[in-house]
């Protein structure tokens, strides 16, 4: 896979279908050649994307499954970029403090994990939609 390829999904905004996204990411990364620790890299990208989707379900759409999340996986042999678009309530990523890792807490790990596991996590709110972009260079 030397050229860039785009896989598109439209998922209902429901926790029930998060496994679909994980399965697609796993399948896409399975075809990337020469990855170091393939299972770990795949898991990390799956988890990062999963956490953002949960954020969209819970905050953008307040758990209303009538809405959906438009997802694009843009991948080549070196890199993956995941775009997740919703039309719900805007979110302020700066409002989520970094968790204090010296003391277990109930909330706050989701965005932290996404940022730790991907190279970049960007969010932009527009007049009619919100867009998360997660990106990772593969390790070989």
């Amino acid at each position, binding site marked *: 896979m030397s050229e860039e390829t785009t896989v598109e999904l439209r998922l209902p905004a429901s*926790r*029930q279908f*998060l*496994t679909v996204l*994980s399965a697609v990411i796993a399948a896409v990364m399975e075809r990337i050649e020469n990855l170091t*620790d393939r*299972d*770990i890299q*795949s*898991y*990390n990208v*799956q*988890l990062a994307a*999963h*956490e953002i989707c*949960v954020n969209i*379900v819970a905050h953008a759409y307040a758990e209303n499954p009538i809405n959906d999340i438009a997802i694009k996986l843009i991948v080549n042999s070196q890199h993956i970029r995941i775009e997740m678009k919703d039309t719900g309530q805007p979110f302020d990523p700066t409002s989520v403090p970094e*968790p204090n*890792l*010296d*003391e*277990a*807490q*109930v*909330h706050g*790990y*989701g965005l*932290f*994990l996404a940022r*730790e596991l991907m190279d970049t996590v960007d969010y932009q709110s527009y007049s009619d939609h919100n867009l998360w972009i997660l990106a990772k260079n593969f390790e070989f």
Partner: protein
Amino acid sequence: MDITITQHQTIAEVTLTGRFDAFNADKLREQLYSIIDQGTNQFVLDLSQTPFLDSAAMAVLVSLLKRARQQGGDVKLVWPQQEAARRILNLTRFDRVFSMSETATAALQTF
């Protein structure tokens, strides 16, 4: 996710099989809280067969830990077998907050 609960006198051994995430976390939390309400405050949560954990799962673990400790008990964890899942517990330093064991038998013996 399948949940198996084995009572060892004062300790509840909870074995989770399958993905533990935002889809099933609330349901598990309610089950665990009901065990506490029935008088048990010592838990071994066996994550060895849990290939995927997310922040919702971690929230359940922390909630249970806080509630158990409020009642004089504790929650001990068994490491996931999958290296990727183990690394997430390292990344969030859960391995420093919780007592971790390689097997449920070992975890039970730490009480």
